[in-house]
């Protein structure tokens, strides 16, 4: 059963299996294990970023294509849902329409970019996506009438997903069973399904073909695979899933703006998650996203206390200030590309 759900792609390391099980249990029972708004928010973000990072891994790890437009697709999904919720009112119909619309637009845009720039060198794709994504981000903040510009959009979600909605009176294990909890499980199960779906895709005949294309595109053509179409399909698929992740974020935080969806910083976060977790493994996205979001949430607090503790010293407080968190991540990123190109998952697997 588990083997089927995982599409036959087992963790292939006891330690890795253990860690993954721990993450799964932690997320599945997060409202009960870690009560409190902040920790539930962290858990939901982990779910969303696992999907986002996994969809990026489909591109980076399995197809060998570097894209800087992943946050653009993430943003399109979020804005689609956000626009539908703010214009049609807080209904499930709005969520469905917005999500479907955003995903379709993201997929169409990915198709256009893919067909247009994947024909030539892979390096073109990286540069083209960077340019397109930046132009898109600027466009979104310029079209403030529609998108709310830099301020973004704040909107209501259906009452059934809000804290005011009570499913039952009383508490279970001291936790209120309300709409917020329902919303969390909507996020959790959507993320779980999407992740398992991606896992199936990479283990499907299509996924195997992607690996072949990544290894030797020339030969893949010579045995009858239309390389551009495979790369493009992977791009479209990865964009669609990113858009769905964006929709989940839009529903969860009830706000959509450039800083939470489109910024280059998030793009870099995704890159870090996938590279540190381990490219081309899918499970790497789980590990990477979990580690990263936990670190982002809790390490910065730690850094703040370090800043205080070192106040008297020169320079050091500047380097350990919470705002400098990206500095350390950047270094970690460079070091992991050099020394752990297979990431955490690769390390765990080679230990056996």
């Amino acid at each position, binding site marked *: 059963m588990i083997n089927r759900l995982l*599409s*036959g792609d087992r963790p292939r390391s006891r330690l890795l299996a253990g860690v993954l099980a721990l993450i799964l249990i932690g997320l599945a029972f997060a409202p009960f294990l870690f009560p409190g708004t902040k920790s539930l928010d962290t858990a939901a973000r982990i779910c969303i970023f696992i999907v986002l990072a996994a969809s990026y891994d489909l591109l980076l790890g399995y197809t060998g294509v570097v894209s800087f437009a992943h946050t653009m697709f993430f943003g399109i999904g979020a804005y689609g849902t956000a626009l539908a919720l703010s214009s049609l009112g807080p209904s499930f119909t709005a969520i469905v329409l917005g999500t479907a619309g955003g995903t379709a637009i993201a997929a169409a845009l990915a198709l256009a970019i893919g067909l247009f720039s994947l024909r030539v060198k892979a390096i073109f794709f990286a540069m083209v996506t960077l340019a397109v994504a930046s132009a898109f981000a600027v466009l979104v903040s310029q079209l403030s009438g529609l998108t709310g510009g830099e301020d973004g959009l704040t909107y209501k979600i259906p009452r059934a997903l809000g804290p005011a909605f009570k499913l039952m009176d009383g508490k279970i294990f001291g936790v209120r069973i309300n709409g917020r909890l329902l919303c969390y499980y909507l996020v959790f199960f959507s993320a779980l399904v999407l992740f398992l779906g991606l896992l*199936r*895709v990479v*283990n*499907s*005949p*299509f*996924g*195997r*073909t992607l*690996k*072949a294309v990544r*290894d*030797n595109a*020339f*030969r*893949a*053509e*010579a*045995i*009858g*695979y*239309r*390389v551009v179409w*495979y790369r493009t*399909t992977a791009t479209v*698929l990865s964009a669609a899933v990113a858009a769905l992740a964006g929709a989940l974020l839009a529903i969860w935080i009830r706000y959509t703006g450039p800083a939470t969806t489109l910024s280059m910083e998030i793009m870099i976060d995704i890159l870090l998650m996938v590279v540190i977790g381990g490219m081309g493994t899918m499970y790497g996205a789980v590990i990477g996203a979990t580690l990263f979001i936990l670190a982002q949430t809790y390490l910065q607090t730690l850094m703040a206390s370090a800043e205080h503790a070192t106040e008297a010293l020169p320079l050091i407080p500047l380097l350990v200030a919470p705002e400098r968190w990206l500095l350390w991540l950047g270094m970690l990123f460079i070091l992991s590309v050099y020394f752990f190109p297979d990431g955490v998952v690769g390390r765990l697997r080679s230990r056996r």
Partner: protein
Amino acid sequence: MAIEAPVLTTQDLTIRFGGHVAVDQVSCAFERGTLTAIVGPNGAGKTTYFNLISGQLRAYSGTVTLNGEDITRLGVPERCDRGIGRAFQLTNLFPTLSVRENVRLVVQAQARRGFDLFSRADSHIELIERAEHVLAEVHLLDQADQPVSALPHGDQRKLEVAMMIALAPQVLMFDEPTAGMSVDEVPVILDLIRELKNDRDRTILLVEHKMDVIRSLADRIIVLHNGQLVADGDPAEVMKSPIVQEAYLGNAPEDGQEAPAKSASEEVARG
């Protein structure tokens, strides 16, 4: 016997790299059930000619026709779909994947399964079995689980041939299939080619340098030299013709000074 239309034809096929004409108006027809050896000195344009037929290069002028269909403008995978299979001179495989997976990918392409997104690749037993069958034919089944990069050179050459056989093409193009193989491995490949030839259903093109191989296999030889087709016919006679002797051995009569080209840089075509 009624004369069947040729399977594959090239008509005035030409390609230039900058000012250098690498294949020059080569017209040739290949019939079903025949094995044609293509010979010529290094740099004569044999591999370039192959590239034009299988689609890695697009012709500057002229046409390639397969079963009456003009395929000159088609890409590599399209030509592959229509039945042109190619084994490469420089081994060209998926190095990080296993031997079985290399062949399975070919079978999967053949079965048009590449865009199957939602089934599990390891659930298609028939594809795996077919792959193993081909591997058994080239005596590689024992190494099926090894990554390709761990295989000795000779076995990689065998895998190269196995991948083309797995494609089950109408036209099989071998570019020096035995290059770099040890003496005892060569017969395996030659037997395979002979078997394919005995099918009488396939058209085989073979670039080869070893004369004994050509003698034992070829029905016909065409000779390329400096991109031009200079001889065509029965192996024994062609090898005796003065133009071939000249092409290989360089004992030609005096001729004029070469004219300089006036065009841009010349690109080396790679197979």
